[in-house]
């Protein structure tokens, strides 16, 4: 009985915050746009009972999903988002791993401070931090003024409103999500394993590749998913830091919703994005589960 009650809590959470919204969006994606409040038909009229439900269901169709295949904009946007997410995740891994590694290697009394420094930026609103990057990267911004002052460049670099700025913004924002799981995996690692490897004739470099990396694999995978998944649907960073050539599905979704006022097509775009995301999410879950089993 108590067990059932305990399980019910996460399931209720999932039902209320995932399944119900998903079904509402799914329903809208099968509707037609209309100039009304809310801007789509049909509406379910509960007063009409069973017959009302039947007419309601008969008016739903997959038209909007078919429409998405008629214009290559959508596929290009999904692909471009995928590419940006992939590159950002790799960059975050390349930068995040050495940071996590040196944190884990630092003297134990220093670690809480270092961990604090990683978490500290979260105390400021995400939006304000992205705006700060706009100030740093602008043509007349801090970075260009500094580089001009040092004489490294003679003309200001155009970084803001390009894809470079988007990568900088994404990697900056999601870096802690990469560092923390890797750090937690590395911190648990038993140093005697490295000593054993060296005793058995391994050089320090090959010990790193043969022992440290495989043991931090779970952290790497968790970090990569935590960066990749939100980046794929990212809207705020590309719209503030990116230029108009930055094509991402989040932006296309926004345009369907706000410019075309076509909630049904916008919902169809969102459903497909969700389906694309479900695959890495399932992989992620499986990885987590495996990790738990290994520990348990």
């Amino acid at each position, binding site marked *: 009985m108590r067990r059932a009650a305990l399980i019910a809590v996460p399931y209720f959470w999932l039902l209320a915050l995932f399944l119900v919204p998903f079904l509402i969006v799914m329903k809208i994606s099968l509707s037609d746009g209309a*100039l009304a*409040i809310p801007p789509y038909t049909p509406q379910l009229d509960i007063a009409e009972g069973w017959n009302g439900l039947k007419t309601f269901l008969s008016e739903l169709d997959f038209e909007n999903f078919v429409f998405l295949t008629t214009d290559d904009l959508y596929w290009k946007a999904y692909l471009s988002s995928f590419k940006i997410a992939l590159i950002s995740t790799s960059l975050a891994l390349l930068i995040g791993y050495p940071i996590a590694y040196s944190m884990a290697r630092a003297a134990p009394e220093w670690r809480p401070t270092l961990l604090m420094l990683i978490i500290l930026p979260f105390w400021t609103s995400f939006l304000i931090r992205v705006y700060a990057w706009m100030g740093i990267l602008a043509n007349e911004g801090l970075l260009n003024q500094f580089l001009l002052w040092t004489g490294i460049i003679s003309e200001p670099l155009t970084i803001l*409103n390009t894809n470079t700025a988007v990568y900088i913004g994404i990697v900056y924002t999601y870096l802690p999500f990469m560092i923390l799981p890797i750090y937690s995996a590395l911190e648990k690692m038993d140093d005697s394993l490295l000593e054993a490897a060296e005793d058995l004739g391994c050089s320090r470099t090959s010990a790193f590749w043969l022992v440290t990396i495989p043991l931090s694999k779970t952290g790497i995978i968790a970090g990569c998913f935590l960066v990749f998944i939100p980046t794929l649907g990212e809207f705020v960073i590309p719209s503030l830091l990116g230029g*108009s050539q930055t094509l991402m599905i989040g932006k*296309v979704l926004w345009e369907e*919703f706000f410019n075309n006022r*076509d909630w049904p097509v916008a919902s169809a775009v969102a459903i497909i994005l969700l389906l694309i995301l479900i695959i890495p999410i399932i992989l992620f879950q499986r990885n987590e589960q495996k990790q738990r089993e290994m520990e348990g």
Partner: protein
Amino acid sequence: MKNLMLASATLALVAASAHANEVRVYNWSDYIDEALLEKFEADTGIKLIYDVFDSNELLETKMLAGGSGYDVVVPSGTFLQRQITAGAFQKLDMSKLPNIVNMWDVVSARTEQYDPDNAYSINYMWGTTGIGVNLGKVKEALGEDAPIDSLELILNPDNMAKLAECGVHMLDAPAEMIPMALKYIGENPDSQDPDVIAKAEPVLSAVRPYIQKFHSSEYINALANGDICVAIGWSGDILQARDRAAEADNGVEIAYHAAKEGAQMWFDQMAIPVDAPNPDAAHVFLNFIMDAQNMAAASNYVYYANGNEASKEFLVEDVIGDTAIYPDEATLNNLFTTSPYAPKVQRVVTRLWTKIKSGT
């Protein structure tokens, strides 16, 4: 779904009765003298909650979703018309708006295109869509006789190639930019025909490589700071940039012109949502805004023309005497207005805009 909405509507009602003496206003950003907000509270004893937005699309989505909780909102002409059709607004109760006599018939006649008989809205501000330039940088790039008052400056690729270096921003608003491009090639800017609208694409795509950003509010700061040298934007916004630059005394000199070939005229209208929690207080607010001195204070602060005839005597010379704000008769006749696109045409327009912006 319907039950849910009913529940939220009931909640909104409960909330409304709990704060009966409160009015929630949703207006454009940087669009009022904040002293007026305090004056309203002092004069009427009604608590004012003032929120801002920076795109018509955002407002429209809130209106169409319903239950926005706002008592007064400020959509522009074509958006207002579409939202009236969708049933988003309530008719104004003229008996509660004695100051309506202050309104200016020249503007009222034009806003009737969007709101027949002006039954649902009052004019707040109006203006033109035009060209803002950083005089120093543009003359450096194009010489002393740069065509700063002509569409040639921004739609002729030869000029734009020279301006790209110092930075050009364009409004991220197809309903403004497509009519402008159509005007440039001599087509009807208010065309609803997808074939005619398509002709705007090559014009805009030709200058696209030289545009640094499409955005509808960032250009105010960018222009004032000297980050960019040309912005295609709304009159008052560019004039605000002009004043900020003058205040900062940073050597940036900004000028605004409505294109001499003809520029789009737009109207921001105040209206009351159909589900406004406190329509009585909303009427009090509209009446307060239509007071000649209050309206003049708003215009003197934001550098936009208003639709209030009686306010003219209280306007400072900087505003009433500036033809960039109150155009002379000849320019006024040269201004055009547009009507809303039908949903199918809107889709064509948005798609065209995406193609122009991203090349896809």
